């Protein structure tokens, strides 16, 4: 199973209880990985209210994942 590097920001970091982790997953897309993590950590936000970045670039939820990919789920932003 590929190992994925995950980094968590804002409320996701609080809900996951960590800022980062390396995770082995059998899921093959960013969207499926989010659902797996949502079940594990109880993330409140549905994917439809978020975006996802793979290797520091915005990607669609259908983005396929490979060994070593760096994935960040982007909750609604609140800068400014």
């Amino acid at each position, binding site marked *: 199973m590929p190992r994925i590097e995950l*980094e968590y*920001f*804002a*409320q996701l970091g*609080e809900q996951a209880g960590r800022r980062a982790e390396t995770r082995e997953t059998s899921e093959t897309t960013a969207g499926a990985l989010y659902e797996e993590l949502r079940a594990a950590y109880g993330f409140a936000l549905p994917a*439809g*209210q*978020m*975006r996802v*970045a793979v290797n*520091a*670039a*915005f990607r669609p939820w259908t983005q396929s994942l490979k060994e070593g990919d760096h994935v*960040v789920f*982007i*909750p*609604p*932003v*609140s*800068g*400014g």
Partner: protein
Amino acid sequence: MNRFLIADRAVDIGALRETLLKPEAGGFCTFEGWVRQTNDGRLVSAIEYEAFAPLAISEGRSILDEVMERFDITAICAMHRTGYLPVGDLAVWIGVAAPHRDAAFKACRYVIDEIKRRVPIWKREHYVDGQIEWVACHHVG
């Protein structure tokens, strides 16, 4: 000239302004965002900003590129802070130099609106009563 900075400590704004001084510019417009002492009726003591820096910088640069294409401006620079900022601290700074004022005002407005809409930065408010909360979004996705 197109610079977007994420800074984890206070930045010398005078130095940023100096980088925008161009002989072909006749107007200069800035926007500053400050930490305000209230939000939604609650007393705020500080705001903590967190950014996914690599993506925040690339998205910020995209915004500045768009602005250079859309508006007749000479130079632009924007800075967003991260970390713990007490009331009164500068959280955002945008400076735009242009041949004429209209484009400078419009470009400045465009940049702050787009930062709020799409740059991966999040704020957590610290309240005077001791509570701490992530702020609900400005926009979705």
